[in-house]
């Protein structure tokens, strides 16, 4: 193991300090990665070839297989961020591992939210005739997106790692309150955007069988991609924290030997 020299004889406050890294991959992430590729391949083929065109929308309905899962996974990512942040804030021992998960999840969530907005505006152009309309669903989604860009900016503020965790944790707990507002905006108000088909409160899903199955496959594929990305990102964050810690060890030794030479 090349990486075995990491953290020799240094007590680290990191949660996974005993783990040795040669890459950020493990058996589990490899399995997730392979599964993600397989399911994604099925979604692409089924979405583009097997599924029929919609009776009204025609071919543009295929955008749905990307748009809907990415929106859901963005919500999921932000909820994961909030849960991890609350674990960091409310637990007695403020474990930085939760903060890294929160940060990693928010980064991936912002990416999925961007995909949602881009695919959504393409679909809107084809169906409504407009890229963007200031209707309740679209407006609240835009606010959610900007809020989490702000969250990521707060993580980049100067200060210690603990400060970063605390500041971003507070924002994550406030920002997650927007998600129900975004999701139910189509129920609360009349919106140009259609209501949820699959999460219909009455439970009657009005969708063609193969379309529905492809959509679910899309959700599974995107969830796997999300998990894969978060696990890796969270570990690169840990590595960067560890390397800072190692840099600190060297700096301490340098500072102490500077003392001896005087």
């Amino acid at each position, binding site marked *: 193991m090349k990486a075995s020299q990491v953290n020799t004889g240094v*007590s680290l406050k990191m949660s996974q300090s005993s783990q040795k890294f040669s890459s950020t991959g493990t058996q589990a992430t490899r399995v997730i990665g392979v599964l993600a590729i397989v399911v994604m391949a099925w979604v692409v083929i089924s979405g583009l070839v097997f599924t029929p065109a919609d009776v009204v929308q025609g071919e543009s309905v295929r955008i749905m297989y990307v748009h809907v899962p990415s929106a859901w996974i963005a919500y999921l990512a932000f909820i994961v961020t909030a849960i991890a942040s609350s674990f960091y804030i409310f637990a007695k021992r403020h474990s930085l591992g939760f903060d890294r998960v929160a940060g990693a999840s928010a980064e991936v969530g912002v990416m999925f939210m961007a995909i949602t907005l881009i695919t959504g505006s393409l679909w809107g152009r084809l169906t409504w005739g407009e890229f963007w309309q200031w209707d309740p669903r679209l407006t609240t989604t835009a606010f959610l997106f900007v809020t989490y860009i702000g969250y990521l900016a707060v993580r980049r503020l100067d200060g*210690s790692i*603990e400060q970063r965790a605390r500041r971003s944790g507070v924002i994550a707990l406030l920002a997650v309150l927007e998600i129900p507002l975004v999701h139910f905006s189509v129920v609360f108000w009349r919106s140009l955007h259609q209501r949820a088909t699959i999460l219909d409160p009455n439970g009657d899903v009005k969708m063609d069988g193969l379309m529905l199955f492809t959509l679910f496959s899309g959700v599974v594929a995107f969830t796997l991609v999300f998990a894969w990305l978060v696990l890796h990102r969270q570990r690169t964050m840990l590595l960067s924290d560890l390397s*800072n810690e190692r*840099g*600190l060890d060297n*700096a*301490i030794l340098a*500072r*102490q030997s*500077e*003392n001896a030479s*005087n």
Partner: protein
Amino acid sequence: MPSEKVVDFKDVVIVYDNFPAVAGATFSVDKGEIVLLQGPNGAGKTTLLRACAGLLPIARGTANVLGCDLSTNRVAVRSRVGLLGHANGLFQDLTVLENMLFWSRLVGATRQDVDQAMIAMGISGRLGETQVAKLSAGQRRRCALASLIVRRAQLWLLDEPHAGLDTQGRDELDRTLRAARDSGATVIFASHEIERARSLATRSLMVTTGMVKPA
């Protein structure tokens, strides 16, 4: 009383701006001491004082101040210490008296405490009605010291308290610190006025490159 140790540091590392400003400091201070921290610029004196006040996180080692573990309960320390840093912590647009009354209200001091402290530091009378922005550096320092006096802390932490003061002001300050010690407080201060500081201190510590040794 389990221990008379007011400050107890063991192998403490304090990181400031990704730099180990304190790199393994071990020392302790007993109740009733007046301890001088001396050493060259950039040795870590200011960082040590701020850490004792509970303002900086401890990266490594164990640090205990007034019975509070700094790595777990940094905030609890703050209600028991008084800190005079490089900056004075004054509001430029307020008068000396308004500044004093603001800080005294926060810490629960009476008007009488304020008047006495202002007389002790020689900023009472007409000077009290002057805006801080119009004062000289030495007068501001006196004002900051007066607001530290009304704090009546258990542990006094002073960073270069003599800097900028005239001889008379320095004498007043030394007298006040000795009186505080006699009333049961403990004092740690950093200074470059070695002659004067040594005569005031009961013990000196040498701080060099983030380490602490007896001087």
